[in-house]
């Protein structure tokens, strides 16, 4: 077991776990913070997993996730804004 895999597993348990908990409970703004945290941690996990696999073409996945989570979160901030 390489240190990259250990880092990915630790991030899944200690980073993604709290993010999923935050993203599933409470007010919409709190859940959105959980979604942002989960996206950021997932990008790091995917970077480490591509290193574990030894396939550099897998790096497209965290790249696309970083781009889509940015756009998606901005859309959520517009949709969750109170209408006045």
């Amino acid at each position, binding site marked *: 077991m390489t240190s990259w895999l250990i880092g990915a597993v630790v991030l899944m348990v200690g980073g993604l776990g709290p993010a999923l908990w935050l993203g599933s409970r409470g007010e919409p703004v709190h859940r959105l913070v959980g979604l942002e*945290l989960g996206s950021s941690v997932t990008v790091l996990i995917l970077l480490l997993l591509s*290193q574990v696999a030894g396939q550099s073409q897998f790096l497209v996945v965290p790249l696309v996730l970083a781009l889509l989570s940015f756009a998606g979160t901005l859309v959520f901030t517009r949709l969750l804004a109170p209408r006045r």
Partner: protein
Amino acid sequence: MTVPTTAPGFVSELLLGAGVLVAVASSVAALLVRSPYDRLHFLTPVTSLAGPLVGASLAIENGWGTTTGQILFVVLLLAVTGPVLGAATGRLARRSTEPDPGRSR
């Protein structure tokens, strides 16, 4: 688990450990606080500190090349977009909590 025998290998593992530690500590701390603003504060170290630390660790391991370029680009993207998303979410949190000026009259 393999033990690094070279100096770059040791530095790479050290940076990886620091990055993972920062990300896990920030996630757990975000879970412990209640205010959305405090939670946003704990989101920043993940994108601005843990990301570059993990990226630097991977860059040292892989050496100069297109793989390292891709990794650094992803990490840079994360570091640039993180504060933008934090500001947008903070503005949303303020708009959600402040009273509606139209209803006070």
